[in-house]
């Protein structure tokens, strides 16, 4: 029993060592209340985060997926750095051509930036693979990447992880928390928040997750 408890302890410990604490969120005052759940707090959204073998070191989750049950009205704001990463070029193009989207795939570990035509091809392949698993069109899928610039994504590891990632999608708080950890790189804390308020006679929710700790001076538009 001690060995099993020690192995379960190790696995739990292992699990906890792969997770990072949540950031304190300093919300401005307003006619809203904070609710748990980040990106899954709003109706219709699901999320998942898992370790897909993309990070250079450690086994902290590094692959996240956020999906919507319906065609969601989409908006995107992107870096104005002219050496834009392949996922940025892909998303700008996709959002330009469609008002809606159904999913966002996010990987940590490699930024897929300064990777040329091969890097752009990697984005297309990942979007196509997610679309197939979700029975959607590739243009319903948006992609975000973060990590080391100049390295292509570990595509085999990513593609092999997608079935498990899709299976673990859930509309729970845990799903949102796992996704918020999976998008981090040098972050010491994960960043996730959601609020609820009444708009137009109905209760609505706005939630989100973010990552960032270094190379931070956004000039997006």
């Amino acid at each position, binding site marked *: 029993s001690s060995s099993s408890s020690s192995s379960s302890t190790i696995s739990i410990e292992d699990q906890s060592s792969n997770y990072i604490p949540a950031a304190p969120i*300093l*919300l401005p005052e307003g006619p809203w209340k904070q609710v748990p759940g980040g990106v899954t707090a709003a109706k219709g959204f699901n999320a998942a985060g898992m370790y897909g073998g993309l990070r250079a070191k450690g086994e902290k989750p590094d692959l996240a997926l956020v999906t919507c049950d319906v065609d969601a009205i989409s908006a995107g704001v992107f870096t104005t*750095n002219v050496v834009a990463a392949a996922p940025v070029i892909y998303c700008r193009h996709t959002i330009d051509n469609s008002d809606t989207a159904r999913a966002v795939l996010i990987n940590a570990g490699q*930024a897929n930036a300064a990777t040329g035509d091969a890097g752009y091809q990697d984005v297309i392949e990942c979007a196509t693979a997610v679309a197939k698993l979700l029975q959607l069109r590739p243009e319903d899928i948006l992609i975000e990447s973060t990590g080391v610039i100049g390295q292509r994504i570990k595509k085999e590891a990513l593609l092999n992880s997608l079935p498990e990632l899709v299976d673990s999608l859930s509309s729970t708080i845990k799903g949102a928390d796992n996704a918020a950890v999976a998008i981090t790189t040098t972050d010491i804390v994960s960043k996730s928040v959601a609020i609820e308020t009444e708009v137009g006679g109905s209760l609505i929710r706005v939630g*989100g997750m973010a990552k960032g700790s270094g190379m931070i001076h956004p000039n997006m538009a």
Partner: protein
Amino acid sequence: TLLGVITTDALVTSDLWRSMVLTAVNRSFNQITVDGDTSTNDTVIALASGTSGSTRISSLSSYEARQLQACLDAVMQGLAKSIAWDGEGATCLIEVTVTGANNEAEAAKIARSVASSSLTKAAIYGRDPNWGRIACAAGYAGIPFHPNDLRISLGDIILMDKGQPLPFDRDAASAYLRRAGETHDTVKICIGVGNGQGQGQAWGCDLSYDYVKINAEYTT
């Protein structure tokens, strides 16, 4: 790199949603800075499912649109501040508020110039209430204002008013900075540049030895 995913179940038209998201980004993520490096990958994606059953929001001037905009601003500011709070090597969050400018955009530009100043960031890490560096960073923001209108305070301590440096309790000011650093709290810098209606905020963090250490090892 900054990545963000924002979700809502509000029902809103596409053009309006895209305009609101950009406005909220300019009041939040575009107002943070850790090291002055603009990433190749910065992206914020925002999705609205419309499944809350709320009325469709289709006009920017409607009351519902203003409510949704305020919620979007709040969520993005909460996330943006947590990124600056978690800046590499940071010991505290720096919040810069500028008032008295001609408009929101000019106030925001001055605020971000101060939050981005390496000398101001290093002084705060050294717990040095260096108002001269704050005045300098406000001055090179590229926004004209009369130096005699400049007012600077650190927390509750006024360091400069009407362009004149004031005698202040240096130990108390340094203790304010030290306490914020020891508890990973927020250092508030308030700057007045005139009598205009423009107000803006920016967020950053102090510059520590650890920032260099982390980035000397995190190679491409």
